[in-house]
């Protein structure tokens, strides 16, 4: 299949970027990223700079790949990361537009690569349980109801890709943040410092420059791991509860 690609090229964060047009010969069995590999291989043959994009596991779990394909983060298939997308979902002769995540809190590094360290800082603000190595009691000391553990697991499957931010018209990080808050808060081990955690993480999220949530819901639709928007509702309830009902208050940084 022959394809026309319009890809965002940008040298670094301090220079302006623009779309470049390429054509590439692909095979329907290729993954989307393998199609880009083929493009890059041909650019290198002509001694041109390849298109830079982030990727590592290529099986939908590391959260590295991050590109908006024809207007949709990770492309057209539901529940699928860009690296798991295959070319058989595209048509011969099609034009495909590829852009980076666009959000103030995710500055562009080069071409399709953005800096997502804001997510790390949200986790550092409180996305953990304060237990040192060696302090744990026996793993079976606290039984956890199967359904609850599985609900926590569903929230914990977030891969930190940032598609939710890229999809959101406000570039809000609520889905990402609430997924971690839910995962830890649902487990009895994480309940203890829950109040402080919610406040610190929400405060950090605001500090990083992510937008507010206005319940648009596209984050859930575009999330490759099916993280439920119910997590946001749960966090909102808890956040409000924590600000008005608790002794623990975290100052805004």
């Amino acid at each position, binding site marked *: 299949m022959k394809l026309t690609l319009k890809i965002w090229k940008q040298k670094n964060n301090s220079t302006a970027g623009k779309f470049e047009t390429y054509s590439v010969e692909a095979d329907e069995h290729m993954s989307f990223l393998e199609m880009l590999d083929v493009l890059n*291989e041909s650019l290198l043959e002509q001694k041109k700079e390849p298109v830079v994009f982030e990727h*590592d596991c290529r099986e939908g*779990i*590391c959260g590295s790949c991050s590109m908006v394909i024809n207007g949709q983060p990770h492309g057209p298939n539901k529940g699928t990361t860009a690296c798991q997308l295959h070319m058989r979902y595209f048509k011969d002769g099609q034009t495909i537009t590829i852009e980076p995540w666009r959000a103030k809190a995710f500055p562009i590094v080069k071409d399709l690569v953005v800096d997502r360290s804001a997510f790390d800082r949200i*986790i550092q603000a409180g996305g953990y*349980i304060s237990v040192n190595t060696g302090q744990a009691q026996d793993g079976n000391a606290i*039984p956890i109801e199967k359904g609850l553990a599985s609900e926590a697991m569903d929230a914990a*499957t977030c891969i930190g890709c940032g598609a939710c931010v890229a999809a959101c018209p406000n570039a809000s990080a609520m889905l990402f943040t609430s997924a971690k808050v839910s995962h830890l808060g649902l487990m009895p*081990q994480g309940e203890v410092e829950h109040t402080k955690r919610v406040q610190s993480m929400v405060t950090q999220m605001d500090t990083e420059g992510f937008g507010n949530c206005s319940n648009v819901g596209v984050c859930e639709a575009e999330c490759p791991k099916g993280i439920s928007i119910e997590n946001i509702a749960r966090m909102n309830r808890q956040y409000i509860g924590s600000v008005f009902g608790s002794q623990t208050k975290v100052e805004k940084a």
Partner: protein
Amino acid sequence: MPLKANSPEGTLDDKWTKYRSTMNLVAPNNKRRIDIIVVGTGLAGAAAAATLGELGYNVKAFTFHDSPRRAHSIAAQGGINAAKNYQNDGDSVFRLFYDTIKGGDYRSRESNVHRLAEVSRNIIDQCVAQGVPFAREYGGLLANRSFGGVQVSRTFYAKGQTGQQLLLGAYQALSRQISLGNVEMYNRHEMLDLVIEDGKARGIIARNLLTGKLERFGAHCVVLGTGGYGNVFYLSTNAMGSNVSAAWRATKRGALMANPCYTQIHPTCIPVSGEYQSKLTLMSESLRNDGRVWVPAHKEDVMAIREKRMSAKDIPEDRRDYYLERRYPAFGNLVPRDVASRAAKVACDEGFGVNKTGLAVFLDFASAIQRYGKTEAHSNGIHNPDPKKIEELGKKVIEAKYGNLFEMYEKITGENPYDVPMKIFPAVHYTMGGLWVDYNLETNIPGLFALGECNFSDHGANRLGASALMQGLADGYFVIPYTIGQFLSKEIRTPKINSDAPAFMEAEKDVDGRLKKLLSINGSQSVESFHRRLGLIMWEYCGMSRNAEGLQKGRKLIQELRAEFWKDVFVPGSDDEFNPELEKATRVADFLELGELMMVDALDRNESCGGHFREEYQSEEGEALRRDDEYAYVAAWEWVDGGDPVLHREDLEFENVELKTRSYK
């Protein structure tokens, strides 16, 4: 150089306990003055960095990834072993120890493996306390499954994403230490050299991948947790960025590389679909609990399938060869990984492969669907169910067990494995070899430690399923935090390491020269194309089966390819910017040396054991022939630029297990 394992005195089961309580300690006020560099923040590195931070050391942690959460550990699917015996099925520390030694084909060190089995129990406790959402039973207790053909259920799991959940647990513990200021985190920093001063590891040279700038970092010691080197084969189940460079740079500075030829080839991966293929995807081993492996028994059926004139379903039972069940009636489809992989290779070598390249076999769930369907019908009180109903119920059971894997398979291949059998083929998956370490996880360079997949220590010639996650976390959480004190307790008077000292400046100059050289060649072939060719040589001559002639040829081919690389590679861009092609070039340059050492090691080992199968050493039935009298040693290699690598042996002593031939017949 005599290799001393430094295993402590005492009986097998109290060595570690006694050692731990008599080990040298570093007092809290001194810990604050001691700097530790941890390179790599996968399971092993993140667990180590977090724990050392908690203990009060000043830790600097490095990863080439944009975040510690992206390390390759994230991709592990199946689970993690621990000798908890929660199922009351007779598991124990000794049994896990024994299974690991036997599974490794008696090529690992008893004392290390026993310690691993002991601390496996603490890992589960720790992870639960961190909030890792392990699978649970209805009573709320932790669930287990069996894995890798052992006879007990000791594998803990979190759906098909165990590695992800364990890594996130370690990442969160690390994040907490970062927020407390105990760990300074350097993302997108790649270690390109090790710095040695007065014979001790004292720092690293790292490249800031965003700016391209080289930076010097000094510390009282250096800990590597930089993962495995399966990508020397180009195609593997490893993430694209996994590489050997940190360990290899240490080797070039005098560290010994042990058993590099021990490679694990996993039997159930999705086959190669074309030349553009960039990586291979694992289908979890657990599928072999229900899937039956077969190829057609007749060549004409094979051809008909390849030419799409027939499908698997058209082949009647009596024209199929369920070759694992035929060759290994006792274990059948559940033989260990190395055995299953080799059997698939034999079937394909004989011309029975079932896809257009001839490199695939079937993994068929039809019998399991029938079996489960009938049981379900029975337990739902449906008498005389029609075949459609049985199939429907059976598929439901399969979906509940393997749904996410079947979905992944379909995404990649476009075929529905509920209706047609999967096609699978072995792929490079894990490297048992790695930096040689003693009982303290210290390499032969004082002050240089290696953890997780990048050391050689625990899996011998073959690793059991669900044991890599266990080893990474054991090393990081429960071993290094203690054993590092043996070295550091002698360093409390050492002042801060000056990273402007000559050794640092020289190492930086070396790295700079190497990068400039790569950019200046301006040849005509891409880094990727060299990597792909290296992979083909490795797979052909140092893959699932090896022989002396092939290994000699392979070594020569690699030397030639390396020379060509340094004459004709093309690396675009410059060294003062974000330049992934340059990163790839430094990694492939190192693979081009490691590959040669793997050939040398495989050639030295005149026996077949675990993942290393030498065609000259097999029984009449084609089974591996181990030679304990001559080869019960660890081969630790000293690299010599431009010369022959030098072998240092650590003889393995077995005091607690009897060496037996593994038989799965």
